[in-house]
């Protein structure tokens, strides 16, 4: 946990959950796993509040607990999970593109609430959808449930671990201090058989027709919700790993499209889709796929002949990018996608792009040169890059001071006399990636702080505009005249309106850049993880 990460986590917790949760969360990140008493003592908050904060954190899967020896329960915060909060908009957007509005709302509800039962999700989503639909139409529960089932089938949502059933031979053992949760692999995506019948309810502020009827109906509704639902105790959460897999696949497909053409990228997308469920997320290679299978699974609109497909596959396998490899000849040729190599290439391209934007294209040339040739002397760098000696030296030293390039000394004599030592420049990709990752975290923290600053500065103005809007809305509801509405609107003067506009624009821009920096974080993190797993 670097300083930058801790600061960012603290900002995120504060923004989404409030001060107290922020204090507890940061304390846990800083000090590792701690028992309850130590947390109370360390943060100086009351036991009650600590308990409530821990409940919130556990509900959102940000903190887990473990029973240690001697029966002490310790709580541990997961910094990486907290940083995923930044990526929530991206998850929701992905769900929207794949499963349209219903999917989007399901994922949004699950992310905002941490864990929920299926029936609760379905009910809430149906209500929300009904509100946005036209008058008279309502959303059917069945449709929402079917989307939920599809999400579970493609592993985008998964069951949370549960308390296992107590053993039959009840020896009246004292209950353990904390329940141990476990879940079977097979059950993780099993959707319970529910009979959810009903329609979404529209929340109406006033019922014009049948004003008398809603009253007796309402007590019945609340009574209904008190009955325990059949799937009580089976909670669902969003499967973030699966979303990450999807993002990774998307970036690989985009890279192939940029380097080659549209058809090749479609082929790669098909291959990745086929290996979605069969390959685990950390594997360096997908399962081998035969060209016949790929041909059968191509999207329906794409009618290319088998021959052309074979040619494309050969081209992909021969390309210097090395994303696709040929692993055998049975079934018309077995092809695998080299996931580790693809992630490495994407991460290196990211590094090169960062060097290019920060230092200029000549520095980028030198950086790429040293990256490809692994170890080079000063003179060789000048010769290969065709850059005059003075400038090359200057750029190399600049890159060296930023720790993107490092020096490797090879002494010729046992005493490492500088005049008789070789100095070779080299790029250590993993450490450069980590360093840039830290910089990304710092930038996001800066962006969030700036956004909060902007909102604080204009707090008075924002409150005023909110008041005016509330007055307008209430007056419109009670049926006021045009002139009165105009008068209220003019309470906000033109320069104030402009200020509000620019504030909105700035906040949006800052939000958007947070998401863009998060994309870089994703690429660099996946590369670091994949390299660590390999070694």
């Amino acid at each position: 946990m670097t300083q930058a990460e801790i600061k960012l986590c603290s900002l995120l917790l504060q923004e989404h959950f409030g001060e107290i949760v922020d204090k507890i969360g940061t304390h846990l990140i800083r000090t590792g796993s701690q028992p309850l008493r130590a947390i109370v003592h360390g943060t100086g908050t009351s036991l009650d509040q600590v308990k409530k904060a821990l409940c919130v954190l556990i509900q959102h899967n940000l903190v887990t607990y473990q029973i240690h020896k001697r029966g002490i329960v310790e709580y541990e915060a997961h910094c990486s999970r907290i940083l995923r909060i930044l990526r929530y908009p991206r998850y929701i957007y992905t769900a929207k593109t794949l499963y349209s509005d219903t999917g989007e709302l399901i994922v949004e509800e699950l992310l905002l609430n941490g864990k929920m039962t299926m029936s609760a999700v379905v009910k809430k989503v149906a209500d929300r959808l009904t509100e946005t639909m036209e008058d008279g139409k309502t959303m059917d529960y069945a449709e929402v449930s079917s989307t939920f089932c599809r999400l579970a089938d493609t592993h985008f949502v998964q069951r949370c671990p549960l308390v296992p059933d107590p053993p039959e031979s009840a020896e009246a053992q004292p209950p353990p201090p904390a329940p141990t949760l476990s879940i079977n692999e097979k059950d993780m995506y099993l959707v319970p058989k529910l009979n959810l019948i009903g329609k979404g309810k529209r929340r109406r502020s006033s019922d014009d027709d049948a004003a008398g009827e809603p009253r007796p109906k309402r007590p019945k509704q609340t009574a209904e919700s008190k009955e325990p639902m059949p799937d009580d105790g089976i909670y669902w959460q969003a499967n973030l790993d699966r979303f990450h897999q999807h993002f990774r696949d998307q970036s690989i497909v985009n890279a192939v499209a940029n380097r080659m053409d549209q058809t090749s990228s479609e082929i790669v997308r098909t291959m990745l889709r086929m290996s979605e469920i069969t390959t685990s997320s950390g594997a360096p290679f997908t399962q081998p796929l035969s060209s016949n299978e790929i041909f059968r699974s191509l999207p329906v609109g794409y009618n290319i002949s088998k021959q052309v497909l074979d040619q494309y596959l050969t081209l992909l396998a021969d390309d210097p990018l090395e994303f696709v490899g040929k692993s055998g000849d049975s079934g018309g040729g077995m092809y695998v996608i080299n996931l580790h190599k693809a992630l490495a290439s994407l991460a290196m391209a990211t590094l090169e792009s960062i060097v290019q934007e920060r230092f200029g294209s000549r520095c980028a040339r030198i950086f790429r040169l040293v990256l490809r040739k692994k170890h080079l002397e000063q003179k060789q760098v000048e010769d290969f890059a065709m850059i005059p000696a003075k400038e090359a030296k200057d750029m190399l030293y600049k890159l060296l001071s930023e720790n993107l390039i490092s020096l490797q000394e090879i002494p010729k004599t046992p005493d490492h006399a500088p005049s008789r030592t070789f100095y070779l420049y080299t790029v250590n990709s993993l450490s450069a990636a980590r360093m840039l990752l830290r910089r990304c975290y710092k930038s996001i923290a800066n962006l969030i702080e700036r956004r909060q600053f902007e909102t604080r500065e204009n707090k008075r103005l924002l409150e005023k505009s909110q008041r005016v809007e509330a007055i307008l809305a209430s007056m419109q509801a009670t049926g006021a005249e045009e002139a009165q509405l105009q008068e209220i609107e003019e309470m906000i003067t033109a320069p104030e309106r402009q200020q509000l506009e620019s504030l909105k624009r700035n906040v949006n821009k800052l939000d958007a850049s947070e998401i863009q920096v998060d994309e870089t974080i994703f690429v660099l993190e996946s590369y670091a993880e994949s390299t660590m797993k390999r070694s």
Partner: protein
Amino acid sequence: MAEVKVKAQPPDADPVEIENRIIELCHQFPHGITDQVIQNEMPHIEAQQRAMAINRLLSMGQLDLLRSNTGLLYRIKESQNTGKMKGSDNQEKLVYQIIEDAGNKGIWSRDIRYKSNLPLTEINKILKNLESKKLIKAVKSVAASKKKVYMLYNLQPDRSVTGGAWYSDQDFESEFVEVLNQQCFKFLQSKAETARESKQNPMIQRNSSFASSHEVWKYICELGISKVELSMEDIETILNTLIYDGKVEMTIIAAKEGTVGSVDGHMKLYRAVSPIIQPTGLVRAPCGLCPVS
């Protein structure tokens, strides 16, 4: 009556005769003759006379004394050299010899000192003399600008000293390299464009977007933007810089010996490519470009 023994000198014991015989022998064996050979030829001459003759020939500059692992060798010297060196003394001749041996790479003054064992002041004087006589010249090395290498006047300096086609008068021609860079890239890009438009079979499309280094070389020569004659290796170094710019990729294929442009049985093919990602997210935020760490 004491009889003075007079050694009857054999008729060809005349010193000049001996020298002529030795010169003839040297002409017979242009690679050099050892002392043993001379002794075999003229067994009746004493060692002292032989030595004297050889010394005279050496001092007159008609014989070269070399050392080999079998012993000392005597070699006839080319006649034109003896004409040039008329006014110089032995030391200058020695220094000149050393410089001549260095060929077109030239030799540094310190190395001359090591080889000849002469003190520095002498070396400097001799070098100045030789330069004024226009027998040697000093060439500034492009690698270390303070170092001066000496070579014979009429020799062309080697590429490693002057830097070859990219250097004109010790100056690296960056604009020239840049212009060539852009021209090569444009050529490859247009080739890739036409290949993409043709909309054929993907294999043919890809193969036609490749250009071999020979084709690029011909194109650049025809363009005529370079005053200096460029070889294929020069063009390949330029294409390599394009690879390091990330704009071009290269593959090597095996080619038959006879095909045009193949070197040692393989050919290098180049193709223009576009980068695999857009500029990344971090650099779109000001924090990515900020110089404050």
